[in-house]
């Protein structure tokens, strides 16, 4: 029982309670008899009133009252006084039930139901609410009812803003009041109400208000969530924009003999796309959007005939995604040697691209790149593609600088356009955030407050994201890393939250410029000597618990993430060129965690050895992976039965879901609890393309 002490009852209490129980039982059974026989006499209603006052949670008892009211009203022949007397009696019963238990859903709903009939005065309602809200300022039933009543009274949002301020001034530790203020303020900002546009002045006042709360008791959580929301209101841009693309603007993609492909310099792996003869074109947006198709995105080129089909890279089969891809069928294009073909993509001219929160794509943007076929290509030696991939240290060679031709590694040039667009608002944003940074540095100078440190880290990150150049974007990264490091020690309960944030900041730092990326890029095997050599991005052993910044890594084909602490690869689906992936020695707990791999058409080589797959009874990725459980797709029974009919679907569905749609040639699963002999047999059936399993060649 909520809040009641555990103690054995004294004998006299037991007697009293069983007498009470007997009385209540009688009341209940008499009521049910009346209900079933549709008896709505005054005596029956009084008996029911006694019951709901005693036990307001009995929703059948409230239903009975509604039936009774409807019956009585239908007999009343619209005598207004009589109608009002019936409804007033209901309001009285509700009030006395609420005095017994003001958390009763049934009682509050009954009151709404009565009011929605009209006829009753609503003036009394705010007075009643004041009384209840004084007893418990956080009662969310009362708050919900307040929103209902104020809407009915057409009380203005401005007046309600004043009310929340009174409550906050009275006691700032009132999360419910802060919450309601955020709802009201969102409405006022959205409809640009008088005095609430432009948002700059309003937000400044709000920062002042919340600062008083935060600085008075920094350990009280109430104001902090509101403050975080204010930061978001300050820096966020509603309209989606294009963040990056592959191929990037201004790049040249070299194709070899219409088959194997090279990016300009950082050559694509020999066997990668040659099988499918298709070149992906990737668009990476600032937020999930829908409506990417040939009418909203125009692609101009002499090599194209017919429209391109754009596909959302969504792991839940939704038609909304942050990343979209189309495939150029270069295998079918009759391209001449040594000739450059231009492709120009433009979007944002028509209104069809919309974010999931309903905002239209910001402003027109263009991406132009060139395709070219080279002749000096030698077929890889027989069987080279079938050679086992090695992730050994000595198979990689560092390089001192990127070759000119490797310009593709550089991050995108779209940024400058974006920032130009937002120049006017961002000046104010930067000032506002700067001011907050100063305040929090001040607060932290004499206290070690956890929420203060976290907020400072978030403010600095926001400040960096507002900067206009790539280099400036990382000015505060070291300080942010330091703050998250401190927080891990200061608040060990939530240490992995800070670690995740630390990982994201670190990746941001590493991937922001060509110079910062270079130490992590290596040639694989003797690639340095040949033009066909390829680059591996090696992010192993960085104690990463989370990956991110995929928008800067769209060019990657070989990726080593081994020896980290990863348990998910959310966002990896954007890397459409990826063909070799090493995830060994991490903390992946289930196959559903590998869901994004299903969208990687080019993936051939996968190492997931030495993880925790099969060691956990609870799967935290179960509902983030498209499956029949979340109704995002049907289970492919036919395919399952053809490939693996003799295996038990309730046991192997996860592995089937992931591997059933991949065309791997190499797979390492050893060092996982799941990987017994039976499971290996299952894999061989589900992956007919597999040539190497756990380092051994399959015959």
């Amino acid at each position: 029982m909520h809040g009641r002490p555990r103690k054995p009852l004294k004998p006299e209490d037991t007697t009293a309670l069983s007498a009470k129980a007997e009385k209540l039982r009688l009341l209940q059974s008499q009521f049910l008899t009346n209900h079933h026989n549709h008896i709505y006499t005054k005596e029956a209603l009084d008996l029911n009133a006694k019951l709901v006052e005693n036990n307001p949670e009995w929703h059948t008892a409230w239903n009975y009252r509604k039936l009774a009211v409807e019956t009585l009203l239908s007999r009343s022949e619209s005598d207004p006084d009589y109608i009002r007397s019936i409804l007033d009696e209901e309001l009285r019963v509700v009030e006395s039930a609420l005095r017994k238990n003001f958390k009763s859903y049934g009682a509050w709903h009954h009151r709404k139901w009565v009011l929605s009939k009209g006829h009753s005065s609503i003036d009394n309602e705010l007075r009643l609410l004041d009384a209840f809200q004084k007893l418990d300022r956080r009662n969310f039933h009362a708050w919900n009812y307040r929103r209902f009543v104020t809407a009915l009274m057409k009380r203005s949002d401005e007046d309600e803003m004043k009310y929340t301020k009174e409550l906050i001034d009275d006691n700032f530790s009132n999360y419910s009041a802060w919450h309601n203020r955020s709802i009201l303020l969102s409405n006022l900002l959205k409809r640009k109400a008088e005095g609430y546009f432009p948002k700059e002045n309003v937000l400044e006042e709000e920062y002042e208000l919340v600062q008083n709360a935060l600085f008075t008791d920094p350990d009280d959580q109430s104001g902090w969530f509101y403050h975080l929301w204010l930061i978001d209101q300050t820096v966020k841009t509603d309209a989606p924009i294009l963040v990056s693309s592959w191929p990037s603007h201004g790049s040249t993609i070299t194709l070899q003999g219409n088959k194997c492909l090279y990016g300009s310099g950082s050559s694509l792996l020999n066997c990668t796309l040659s099988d499918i003869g298709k070149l992906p074109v990737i668009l990476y947006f600032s937020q999930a959007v829908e409506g990417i198709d040939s009418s909203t995105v125009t692609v101009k080129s002499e090599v194209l005939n017919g429209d391109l089909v754009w596909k959302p890279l969504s792991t839940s089969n939704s038609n909304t995604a942050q990343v979209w891809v189309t495939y150029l069928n270069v295998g079918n294009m009759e391209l001449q040697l040594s000739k450059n073909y231009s492709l120009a993509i433009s979007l944002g001219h028509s209104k069809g691209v919309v974010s999931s929160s309903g905002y239209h794509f910001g402003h027109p943007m263009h991406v132009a790149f060139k395709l070219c076929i080279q002749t000096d290509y030698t077929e890889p030696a027989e069987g080279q593609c079938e050679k086992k991939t090695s992730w050994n240290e000595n198979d990689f060679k560092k390089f001192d600088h990127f070759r000119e031709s490797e310009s593709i590694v550089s991050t995108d040039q779209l940024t400058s356009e974006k920032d130009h667009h937002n120049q006017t608002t961002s000046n104010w944003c930067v000032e506002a955030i700067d001011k907050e940074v100063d305040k929090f540095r001040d607060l932290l100078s004499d206290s070690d407050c956890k929420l203060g440190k976290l907020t400072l880290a978030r403010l600095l990150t926001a400040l960096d994201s507002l900067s206009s150049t790539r280099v400036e974007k990382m000015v505060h990264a070291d300080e942010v890393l330091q703050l998250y490091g401190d927080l891990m020690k200061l608040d060990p309960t939530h240490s992995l939250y800070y670690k995740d944030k630390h990982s994201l900041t670190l990746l941001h730092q590493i991937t922001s410029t060509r110079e910062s990326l270079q130490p992590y890029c290596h040639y694989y095997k003797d690639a340095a000597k040949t033009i066909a050599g390829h680059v591996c991005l090696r992010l192993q052993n960085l104690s990463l618990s989370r990956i991110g910044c995929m928008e800067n890594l769209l060019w990657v084909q070989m990726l080593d993430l081994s020896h980290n602490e990863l348990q998910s690869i959310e966002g990896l689906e954007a890397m459409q060129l990826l063909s070799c992936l090493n995830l060994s020695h991490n903390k992946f707990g289930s196959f559903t965690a590998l869901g994004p791999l299903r969208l990687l058409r080019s993936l051939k080589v996968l190492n997931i050895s030495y993880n925790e797959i099969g060691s956990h009874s609870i799967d935290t990725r179960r509902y983030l992976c498209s499956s029949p459980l979340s109704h995002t797709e049907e289970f492919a029974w036919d395919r399952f039965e053809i490939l693996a009919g003799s295996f038990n679907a309730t046991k192997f569905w996860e592995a089937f879901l992931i591997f059933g749609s991949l065309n791997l040639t190499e797979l390492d699963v050893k060092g996982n609890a799941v990987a017994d002999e039976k499971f290996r047999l299952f894999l061989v059936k589900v992956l007919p393309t597999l040539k190497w399993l756990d380092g051994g060649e399959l015959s």
Partner: protein
Amino acid sequence: MGELAIDNHVRYIVSIEKRKDDFESVVMEHLRMNGAYWGLTALDLMGKLDSVDVDEVVSWVLSCQHESGGFGGNIGHDPHLLYTLSAVQVLALFDKLDVIDVDKVTNYIVSLQNEDGSFSGDIWGEIDTRFSYIAICCISILHHLDQINVDKAVKYILSCKNMDGGFGCTPGGESHAGQTLAITGSLDLVDKDLLGWWLCERQVNSGGLNGRPEKLPDVCYSWWVLSSLIMIDRVHWISKEKLIRFILDCQDTENGGISDRPDDAVDVFHTYFGVAGLSLLEYPGVKPIDPAYALPVDVVNKIFFSK
């Protein structure tokens, strides 16, 4: 703190069934269907579902069904989504879903969806995102999700999204950990980091979880907060060890049962949420539970992965 006193908890749950006349039972009579679900699921998680008579339970559940297809909280009570889900879950536990007329139950649920996508709890029109969750969960178990308008249902739930990333009962309502479950199946529309941070900050110093900021911890949030954190893959952001200790501290190790906070009176509601919480925390000896359907994983997998 000791370990989970499984034998005592099983004895406690079984004994409630027999005590129909004491005050608590009389007060709880209107939600006996929920009680049955809490008690029986807890028993199954502890591997003791065989301590009850299946036929007796199933025939009692059926006697609570109303002609509209919905179930009441007890015999002769009005039907409501709250009890309809519990009834369906109880039948699923025993693999007895075939005893009901699935179309009839489906039609009842379908009839409660409103034009804006929201769900009413019953014919009297109370609207709450809890009912959206219940409707979606229940109709999924019955394999008839296509009968409701899922897009609209999701859109309505999203309209209840708040500054902290959580969801309220109705648009404008304060975030409550319990509402998050309603979004199953559309988790890509959730800001997982924002919501996850708000949820993980529900863990207070004692290790327990509260439902809203600056409130007391309560064992029942070991279910609501934890299942949401698991579904968005952010459960590592809290300390599992501390929460396990908090739940175990709330046991009545002598007479069985679990309470909201240490040394409070136990009840079947908190006993279930405590055991289910430990299951989500991978506590040894407790069967795993599915965070969305609130049924043991083996029961759910059987529903969705057998032909």
